[in-house]
């Protein structure tokens, strides 16, 4: 006699069928919109390719190349790319500099702009090489020295970075340059006091320089454990410059650190076009348990797309995504360790140690702790050995 179809199995089948019915979805297919009015895409209002398109058509007709016009336009695209974190604009900057980009005997202005583009793409060694050529030709170029200092700082070469700052003629920027690196390589307290004393002078500077100062000071306050002071610094800075991706990301991190997920989600909601802010948004939603699958998928896809292009500039974000959203500590540690070879800012250090501890790798965490001991870097947000031992 054949056994009757068991109830348990039948039940499971039914259950599965119901779930199939509920979640069955046909993958989206290409479609023809029913109305001409349908908006396909919102275009960024202030930075358009129009100027570049005109320039290129002038080039095609053989009109004389004017380096000053090209350099000005390239500079604008680079500035806008910083302000909006839009990588396409870096591509346009490269397009503007097209005729000189690959030439061995590029004008100094082009070399400097190219170095800044490479820095933005995290090609730090490439940027340093170009900067040394610029400095050889123009030993007093403040922009070149400042860029050099910032690149060396990201790489963790503090002594060289400070000496680059000292090559800049005395100015507010030169002072902040030196202080920010001093604040990484030694006792934070006195540096914070000196930074604070510069506040009135900061307000005479351009919006970009003010934001730089505000962000550096707020991060110093956070590293020294003065969360509420840091928060008021962020808030004041955001009033002055409400759309700066760096400020928004740093403030979102403070909110995430203090488990104010609703606020973090709200702060970043408008800015999910910016990768770094989309990541904070996804983390906040994940913590609140309302992360939509397509958001997670889109995030993972953006990392995949970067690899496809051979880019590795999102290692920090990818490691953090693996650690905090996918909750895969060993993948996170592998990424954080690779990131640490390229970037050595406090955020990278913190990520390395956190991923290492999550993955039970005290050895990798020690890499980070040894670095702190060797450089004198202070950051209360980095889990220390005592707290890890508990």
């Amino acid at each position, binding site marked *: 006699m054949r*056994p009757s*179809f*068991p109830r*348990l*199995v039948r039940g*499971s089948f039914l259950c*599965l069928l119901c*779930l*199939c019915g509920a*979640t*069955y979805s*046909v*993958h*989206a*297919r*290409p*479609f*023809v*919109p*029913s*109305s*001409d*009015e*349908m*908006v*396909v*895409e*919102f*275009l*960024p*209002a202030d930075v358009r*390719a129009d100027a*570049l*398109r005109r320039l290129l058509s002038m*080039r095609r007709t053989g009109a004389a190349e004017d380096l000053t016009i090209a350099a000005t336009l390239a500079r604008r695209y680079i500035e806008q790319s910083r302000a*909006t974190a*839009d*990588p*396409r604009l*870096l*591509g*346009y900057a*490269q*397009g503007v500099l*097209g005729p000189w*980009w690959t030439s061995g005997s590029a004008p100094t202005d082009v070399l400097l702009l190219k170095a800044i583009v490479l820095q933005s793409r995290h090609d730090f060694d490439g940027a340093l090489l170009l900067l040394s050529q610029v400095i050889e030709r123009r030993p007093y170029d403040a922009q070149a020295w400042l860029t050099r200092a910032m690149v060396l700082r990201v790489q963790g070469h503090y002594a060289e970075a400070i000496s680059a700052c000292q090559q800049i003629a005395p100015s507010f920027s030169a002072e902040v340059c030196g202080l920010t690196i001093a604040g990484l390589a030694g006792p934070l307290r006195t540096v914070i006091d000196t930074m604070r004393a510069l506040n009135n002078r900061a307000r005479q500077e351009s919006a970009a320089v003010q934001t730089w100062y505000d962000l550096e000071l707020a991060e110093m306050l956070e590293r020294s454990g003065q969360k509420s002071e840091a928060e008021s610094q962020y808030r004041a800075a955001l009033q002055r410059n409400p759309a700066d991706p760096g400020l928004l990301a740093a403030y979102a991190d403070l909110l995430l650190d203090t488990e104010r997920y609703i606020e973090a989600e709200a702060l970043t909601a408008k800015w*999910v*076009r910016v*990768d770094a802010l989309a990541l904070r948004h996804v983390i906040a939603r994940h913590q609140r348990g309302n992360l939509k*699958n*397509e958001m997670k*998928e*889109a995030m993972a*896809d*953006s990392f995949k*797309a*970067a690899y*496809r*292009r*051979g880019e590795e500039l999102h290692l920090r974000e990818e490691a953090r995504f693996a650690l905090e959203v996918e909750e895969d500590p060993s993948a996170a540690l592998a990424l954080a360790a690779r990131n640490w070879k390229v970037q050595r800012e406090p955020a990278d250090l913190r990520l390395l140690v956190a991923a290492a501890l999550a993955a039970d790798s005290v050895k990798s965490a020690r890499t980070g702790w040894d670095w702190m001991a060797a450089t004198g870097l202070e950051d209360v947000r980095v889990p220390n050995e005592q707290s890890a031992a508990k």
Partner: protein
Amino acid sequence: MKWMRVIAIMLCALMPVAVHAHRSSDAFLTLEVSDRMILGQWEIAPRDLEAALGIDVDGDDQLTWGEVRQARARLESEVLPALTLKGEAGYCVLNLADLKLNDRVDGRFVWVEFAGVCGAPPSYIEIGYHFLSAMDPTHRGVLTLNTEGGSQTAILDPNTAARRFSLETASNWRALYDYLLGGVWHIWIGYDHILFLLALLVPSVLRYSGSSWEPQARLQPVILNVLSVVTAFTLAHSITLSLAALDLLRLPTKVVECTIAISVAVAAANNIWPIVRHSRWVLAFGFG
């Protein structure tokens, strides 16, 4: 009915455009070669079309479907020539066939359908890709090239010379061998598969006597048993994977993972309290 049209238009206009992160510029090019014909889809980001052609004619910083449609002739004369396909009988003639939109994970793309005719069935194809070469040298074309023999992918850089892709089909035996290896590997790396099968296979050498398991005396039923379970699982699992790979069926990961766990538990429980005794292949097929 006029008012219905108005409502439809209003709804369309109000429909939110999903916001996606800024990315570097990528376009997706899919080519399907069969005989002398090439069918192609080129998915281009609206921003890149705007950059190349300036199609936001009313300058309101919104690209509408009407503006894309109006640019069709310019797309054909200024964008399509940035792509060249050349076989041994020379360049294939490309014609724009249709314009659509496609929603990808990374945003809404303009879907440019085109058809190409080559002088003779090509055994290789040289792809020249120069879209946005001057404007955004960091633009890339993500190529998928499909032939009867299989699929190839590549990243096309608009500032490099044409690249040659062979269309010679790999031998069928080679393909069979690759699939076999792929299958073994898939089962091997998923310990849930092994666990489930083992749970079902353990009683294959046993016979249920009404109250307890006893060793199976003859070899033939053992072999039949094992074969039926493994084949049922293979068939069912192939169907599931095909459905998933073809995107016909999408189940949330959570449900799948949880069902896998249930399946292993059910298979194991069945060994202790046998409900399905003879037709364990049913279990194998159902959860496969």
